[in-house]
């Protein structure tokens, strides 16, 4: 057990090093140069040198990366280049918005996916399975942008039902929260549902083909018992892996897309703006935190196997 944990820890540390190295190189080292943005017109050579020194552009790659790792582990995130706001304050401000935006849609997308997957697997090759399977392929074939635009037109404009605001995030209470979160959440559900349903159906099908399911059926287990107690429970390891692993990806990619589109001031929008502006302190923080989050999720997945599945030791 101790050996397993040590190996996991070493693996996680290496992965954090790798992910931060690649991200740092891409987003910070090769990212946009902010020197001339911070300078006025006709700046002197010394002034340029001074700014470059301040931003760290004059130091070699390895040193900059090393300093970055040091800052990350001591949680010294610095202040944004663009407006001087402390990065920790930016994260405190934007992370709750992103979570409030994505959590409902993420949960709903997975719960619906599991339910539809079970239904389709139970009615394998009958019309109900065919409808669910075709619909999930159709969902996978629709561009995320089309889903968002169409939902926006249907729900938020006078050309459709005009029930919700088309953009923005002015949340003061539950009513305004529901008002602003509904359309982005529905978008997220429709974006993920096709992929989720298809994946869950496949793992449920694989499980329901096994001998013990046939045995349980022969002993007279009802469909609900079969699917719930036997198929669903035994499919938990791959199911949980997928859900856990999709958390960091959905949080970063989903928020990037939804927040940019709906003009919501969350992590995704901040990150995208930081990429295009070259706001290094913000990027460094996001990149580092994402890497750590991902590695933690992987470790969590490994451990949850041991809890759920007695065969793993």
């Amino acid at each position, binding site marked *: 057990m101790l050996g397993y944990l040590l190996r996991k820890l070493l693996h996680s540390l290496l992965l954090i090093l790798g992910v931060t*190295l690649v991200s740092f190189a891409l987003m910070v080292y090769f990212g946009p140069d902010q020197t001339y943005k911070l300078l006025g017109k006709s700046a002197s050579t010394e002034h340029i040198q001074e700014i470059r020194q301040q931003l760290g552009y004059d130091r070699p790659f390895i040193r900059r990366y090393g300093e970055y790792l040091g800052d990350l582990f001591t949680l010294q995130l610095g202040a944004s280049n663009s407006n001087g706001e402390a990065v920790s304050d930016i994260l405190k401000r934007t992370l709750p918005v992103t979570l409030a935006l994505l959590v409902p849609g993420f949960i709903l997308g997975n719960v619906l996916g599991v339910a539809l997957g079970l239904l389709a697997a139970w009615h394998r090759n009958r019309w109900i399975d065919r409808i669910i399977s075709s619909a999930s*392929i159709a969902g996978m074939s629709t561009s995320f942008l089309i889903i968002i635009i169409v939902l926006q037109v249907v729900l938020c404009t006078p*050309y459709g039902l005009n029930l919700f605001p088309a953009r923005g995030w002015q949340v003061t209470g539950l009513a305004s929260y529901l008002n602003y979160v509904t359309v982005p959440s529905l978008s997220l559900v429709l974006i993920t549902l096709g992929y989720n349903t298809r994946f869950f159906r496949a793992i449920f099908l694989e499980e329901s083909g096994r001998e013990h399911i046939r045995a349980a059926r022969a002993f007279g287990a009802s469909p609900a018992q079969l699917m719930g107690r036997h198929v669903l429970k035994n499919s938990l390891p791959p199911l949980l892996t997928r859900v856990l692993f999709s958390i960091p990806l959905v949080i970063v990619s989903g928020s990037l897309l939804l927040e940019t589109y709906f003009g919501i001031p969350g992590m995704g929008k901040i990150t995208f703006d930081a990429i295009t502006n070259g706001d290094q302190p913000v990027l460094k923080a996001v990149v580092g935190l994402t890497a750590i989050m991902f590695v933690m999720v992987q470790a969590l997945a490994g451990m949850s196997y041991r809890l759920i599945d007695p065969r793993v030791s």
Partner: protein
Amino acid sequence: MNSAPLPPLDLRIATAMTSRVLSAPASRVWPRLRRDHAGLAGFGLVGLFGLIALGAALGLAGQDWSIASGGRWEPASTMHWFGTNVLGQDIFQRSIHSVRLAFEIGLIVALASTAIGTLTGALAGWHADSWADDAVVFVTGVLDSIPFYLFVAAVAFALKGNPWSMHIAMVATFWTTTSRLIRAEVMRLKQRDFVQAALAMGMPVSLVLSRHVVPNTIHILLAQAAIVFVAAIKSEVILSFLGLGVQNGVSWGLMLAESTQEVLAGQFNNLLAASIPLFLLLFGFNLMVDALQNALDPRQELG
């Protein structure tokens, strides 16, 4: 390339033996495909769009996409089937021309990702538990841990101005899945008798890999290439919306990005003209992938 000595006799026998192993599933592919009506419909749709793309590439269709042939936001008419955009360009012509770009992006990204994925996957799978294997597994693990849009946006931005930045960004993220699948399959195939026989007869490893191992992963390669094709086209839309995609020219992504502003003013022509063909092409591809996976998987029994 100088004259290579003729392979020894036993090697030729081994080749003949294994080529029979290979051709067996191939003869079962067509009967399986023929009964898969949804899959055939998928092939049909993809073929149709392929012809349109070819037509646009050869200058037979969609050539007037950049000419302002009408007024601003003209409604649909017999002249302009989907009306005109804000600059008075014919939206239908633009959509047709976009088919070519979609195929160009899809093909380039799919071919490059498959090539890199096959090479690294075969190398890692054959030399399992060597330093090369560790390196490949580590790099794929790292790349998969970076959220896709963040990574693609960063690559696209770091290479901004380079017309290939979008393609490079996609290939850099998409090859890892192919590599991981091929690695697992090569590890499995290496244990098989026909591979061990070829090795025992003294066939060079490079020849064993290229003749006996990699061809037997074709069911993974074809399906995975088609999956990457779909992913590339979908990503182009998002990247173009974010301003990191197609720079000059026209694509469904750019048309949709244009429409995000227009739909609030009640202009739906760009949205319709881009989303309908985009959906049909992707739907066709996804049906085709399903059919390919079912028909080519050697473990799948007939019936």
